[in-house]
């Protein structure tokens, strides 16, 4: 049968036969994503065809080159005006290429690059059977403690699959904040979530807790995805379309042609409100907002620390990007419905994260709760519903991701016989043994706490200012109180490191390779530069703060 004939079977015979338009894909504008996804597929092929000994090097090389090339593409697009004057919708309305998208993609790519550096670190663990090893299991599929695991370790295997997984995750994250219809949004969500579930499970040490974290993350993530998908279905029922632009038009009441099949439900506000809330809920799960945050501490603690660092930084960037686009492009007409609810979420997130963090005794869990509190601070900027709000959130995300990756990279350095020494009591007196490492970590903690001259202060100031100017004074007051509570536990760690006696059986600080050093060094540099001279980057975020519709 010819193609038109097939087509006619699928459509109503009454319709005149039309030619299928080949989708118009703007490869240039989508190049950042395409490069990363392509490299990820290449990584899979490398796993299949390159000999085991050289896989690690090839994978690291491919990943770094792909991310650098992708970042160059983002910069090129931004320089070409695609962030401002030439901003538009690409790929048949599926993907937006505009300021926020490019800014966030750039941030994700840099975070990903630093992530590759920490993934590739092989000097921290003592060599096993003469082979240098990284943070990942010799063979992820072997049962912990089994003979096959021992054999894999002895053979010097490593899980080089982490690199293509990482690239797939980054690819999904690049699409996520740029997604311009609900289905693309959902697919991007799954594309970046599934590799992350896997990555959480492949820790070299403490494998059981790592696998437990992965299972929890997967179960709860799937649960959240179900909500999102259901919400998407309801929104489709409301608007007759999954495209952001169309839904926004229906919300505004400016849409003309109503599909007869949907006449019963279209424009039913209950569908809109429930559907919107469910999609938003899925995104709040990803950013770790209270009450959808409970996976965060367990997963952050169990996942291999390089994965935690990458995930904490990049997931937040991607998910907040998607949340911003959803709220600013699709649901601005509903502002007065969602704002009070988001107020409440921001408040409980800020307070909840800060308060529960006080009693934590594990550094990774502490940082997890800290990330929850920060999600609350960022939400304060999100709900400002003003251009300043968008740009302040963009700036905050950029600043926060570097601090986070740097801080988790430092965590990988402090080790004892059982691997990383994450219990806080072991960090006592670290400042006396390794003043440099402790000082660097102190810089990150001060940035988390939002002390002036660090990027944390500039970011917090920007979001609170935007929130205050939009009339959310109460949020700002609660935000400042939460910051004060949070400052307690950050400073407590500094006090512990510098003003306590070191314990005799305390951990040692491993000397990393230039890879991790670069990740930490870049983190410190960005933290200080954004803290001392934030104006250029605030301007950059300000220029990038307009969504295309």
């Amino acid at each position, binding site marked *: 049968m010819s193609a038109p004939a097939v087509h006619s079977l699928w459509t109503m015979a009454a319709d005149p036969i039309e030619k299928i338009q080949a989708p118009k894909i703007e490869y240039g504008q989508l190049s950042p994503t395409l490069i990363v996804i392509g490299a990820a597929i290449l990584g899979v092929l490398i796993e299949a065809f390159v000999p085991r000994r050289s896989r690690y090097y090839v994978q690291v090389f491919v990943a770094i080159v792909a991310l650098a090339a992708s970042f160059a593409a983002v910069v090129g697009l931004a320089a070409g005006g695609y962030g401002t004057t030439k901003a538009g919708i690409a790929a048949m309305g599926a993907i937006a290429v505009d300021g926020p998208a490019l800014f966030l993609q750039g941030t994700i790519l840099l975070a990903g690059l630093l992530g590759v550096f920490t993934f590739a670190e092989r000097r921290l663990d003592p060599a096993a059977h003469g082979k240098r090893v990284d943070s990942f299991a010799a063979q992820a599929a072997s049962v912990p403690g089994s003979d096959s695991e021992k054999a894999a370790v002895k053979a010097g295997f490593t899980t080089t699959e982490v690199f293509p997984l990482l690239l797939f995750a980054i690819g999904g994250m690049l699409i996520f904040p740029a997604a311009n219809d609900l289905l693309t949004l959902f697919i991007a969500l799954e594309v970046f979530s599934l590799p992350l579930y896997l990555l959480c499970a492949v820790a070299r040490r403490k494998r059981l807790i790592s696998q437990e974290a992965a299972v929890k993350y997967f179960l*709860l993530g799937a649960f959240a995805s179900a909500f999102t998908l259901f919400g998407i279905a309801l929104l489709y029922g409301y608007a007759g379309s999954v495209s952001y632009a169309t839904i926004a038009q229906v919300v505004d009441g400016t849409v003309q042609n109503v599909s007869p099949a949907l006449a019963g439900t279209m424009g039913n506000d209950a569908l809109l*409100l429930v559907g919107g809330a469910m999609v938003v809920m899925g995104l709040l799960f990803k950013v770790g907002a209270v009450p959808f945050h409970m996976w965060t501490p367990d997963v952050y603690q169990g996942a291999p620390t390089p994965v935690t660092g990458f995930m904490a930084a990049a997931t937040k960037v991607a998910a907040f990007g998607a949340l911003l686009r959803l709220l600013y492009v699709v649901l601005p007409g509903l502002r007065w419905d969602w704002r009070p*609810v988001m107020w409440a979420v921001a408040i409980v997130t800020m307070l909840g994260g800060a*308060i529960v963090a006080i009693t*934590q005794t594990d550094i990774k869990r502490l940082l997890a709760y800290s990330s929850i509190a920060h999600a609350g601070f960022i939400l304060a900027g999100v709900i400002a519903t003003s251009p300043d709000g968008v740009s302040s959130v963009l700036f905050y995300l950029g600043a926060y991701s570097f601090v986070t990756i740097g801080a988790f990279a430092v965590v990988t350095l402090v080790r004892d016989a059982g691997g990383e020494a994450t219990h806080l009591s072991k960090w006592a007196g670290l400042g006396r043994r390794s003043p440099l490492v402790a000082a660097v970590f102190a810089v990150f903690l001060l940035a988390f706490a939002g002390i002036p001259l660090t990027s944390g202060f500039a970011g917090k100031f920007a979001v609170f200012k935007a929130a205050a100017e939009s009339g959310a004074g109460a949020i700002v007051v609660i935000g400042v109180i939460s910051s004060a509570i949070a400052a307690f536990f950050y400073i407590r760690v500094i006090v512990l490191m510098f003003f306590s006696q070191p314990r005799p059986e305390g951990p040692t600080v491993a000397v990393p390779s230039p890879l991790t050093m670069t990740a930490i060094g870049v983190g410190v540099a960005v933290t200080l530069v954004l803290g001392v001279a934030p104006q250029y980057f605030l301007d950059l975020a300000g220029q990038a703060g307009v969504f295309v519709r």
Partner: protein
Amino acid sequence: MENLIALLVAAPLLGAAVLLCGGRRLDAVGHWIGTAFAAASFVLGVVLFADMLGKSPEHRTLMQHLFSWIPVEGFQANVGFQLDQLSMTFVLLITGVGSLIHVYSIGYMEHDERRRRFFGYLNLFLAAMLLLVVADNYLLLYVGWEGVGLASYLLIGFWQHKPSAATAAKKAFLVNRVGDMGLSIAIMLMFTTFGTFAFGPVLQSTGDAGEGKLTAIGLMLLLAACGKSAQVPLQSWLGDAMEGPTPVSALIHAATMVTAGVYLIVRSGDIFNAAPDAQLAVTVVGAVTLLFGAIVGCAKDDIKKALAGSTMSQIGYMVLAAGLGPIGYAFAIMHLVTHGFFKAGLFLGAGSVMHGMNDEVDMRKYGGLRKYMPITFVTFGLGYLAIIGFPGLSGFFSKDKIIEAAFAKGGAEGWILGGAALLGAAITAFYMTRVMLMTFFGEKRWQPDEHGNEPHPHESPKVMTIPMIVLAVGSVFAGAFFGIGERFVKWLEPVTGFEHGHPPVSALTVTLSTVAVMVVGVGFAYAQYGRRPVPVVAPRGSLLTRAARRDLLQDDFNHVVLVRGGEHLTRSLVYVDHTLVDGVVNGTAATMGGLSGRLRKLQNGFARSYAVSMFGGAAVLIAATLLMRAV
């Protein structure tokens, strides 16, 4: 030309930086570096002065805006300089006397292993003092004000291994803080009243402010002046400050820094002119202090403390003159300059004596030194004649004018202030003659100390005597140079304004009475210390003498009223802090900790609980969104 002003301040600042950061490798040459930077500053001052003389009197003010320090809407803090005749006078005094004292210190501090640091501090002082007098606004003046306070603190406590020096430095610092608070409050009041603190706008718009505001500003400025210039009631630190090396006492605690209060009052003349009550308070402080200092100076056996009492008293004269308004401003500054010469000379002379006497300061253990150190004797003697107002010498011209102006204030006030000033002149003659006689005349009274070291008094090296000679020349001729033909008054008039005072009796009568009381004072002193041998151990003395030896009970008063009172206040505040404030703080922390512990239990590790929490959260989220639409 304007750019030189910044250089003027920068030169000694650079010197301080080089010396203090340079480390030990500069030890051998540090004193030369310090002196060179001070001299460079002096040369710049002279160049600026020559330039200024070439212009007509109305156009001599140089303004330079350097940079905006804190530019905020409605709050402009600029760094800028204003060099007019008043500042110029100070610049020459500070750099001139400062350079001489740098030279003198090369000899005086020769055996001190921390000499480089000493010169670094001296340069720091010069920079801060110059900043103070060339600033074009009160805020920048305050920077210099605090800078000289810092330098003074560091130099009083320079021999910090001596507990007495460390304590004295701390005392000076603390007492000065009280005055500094006054200055900062005055600046804040200016800002709220005028919206600026630049000299020009503030002083030109005094007419727009209410008298009450101006009086408040004036009183706060007076408090500041009292702290820095050791005026009653903030005078107690100056005597102890003599713990510092003698060149410091000469430069900072006699010639320059302690006169900053007078500068402040004269500079703010327009404020005081419009606030007669504040002006009256200034004259009262001046009159009280000139008597207070003079009485203390009569009873001290420590040569430097006697001179410190004298300094306090002479600054009292200046403050009195500054409180008289336009009839007195020029004379206050004139006396300030002549005093700078002769008091610096007297202190350097005292230092020279100590240098030859194994650092002995008790005048009862001197005696007959004129034979051993002739140059010191002659220069000190000329300074002595100048300060007591011997006709023709510097002090005669400047002090006499102040006494005249005090009488010219008119009414009962004029008689009281003039009488006090005249009485002060008599006491000045008495205590200075006493110092002179006990030090240079009579029999030698020194004995070997407990280690058997007997002092061998000798003349000091040239590097010390030459500055003394230069200052002595100034002590002799400066007054006549300034006073004859009202040269100095005309010089300052464009800045401070001038009015002729009209004393109720003729000027000649005042002058003759001044000379007469001076002669009486000298006579009394000669009768007591010249004709009879001076006992080596101080006699018990009258009640007044004993009180004066204890600085008229100033420290006892401060201890009972301020220290005890302060301790009680502190104790009650600590009590409130411990019970109330800490209670609230610790209570909050405990509440947060408890809350944290409870909330933490929700995190039980079971994925099913987490899912329930998410489900509940989603339900609430949806319900709340729907509810928002409903209301």
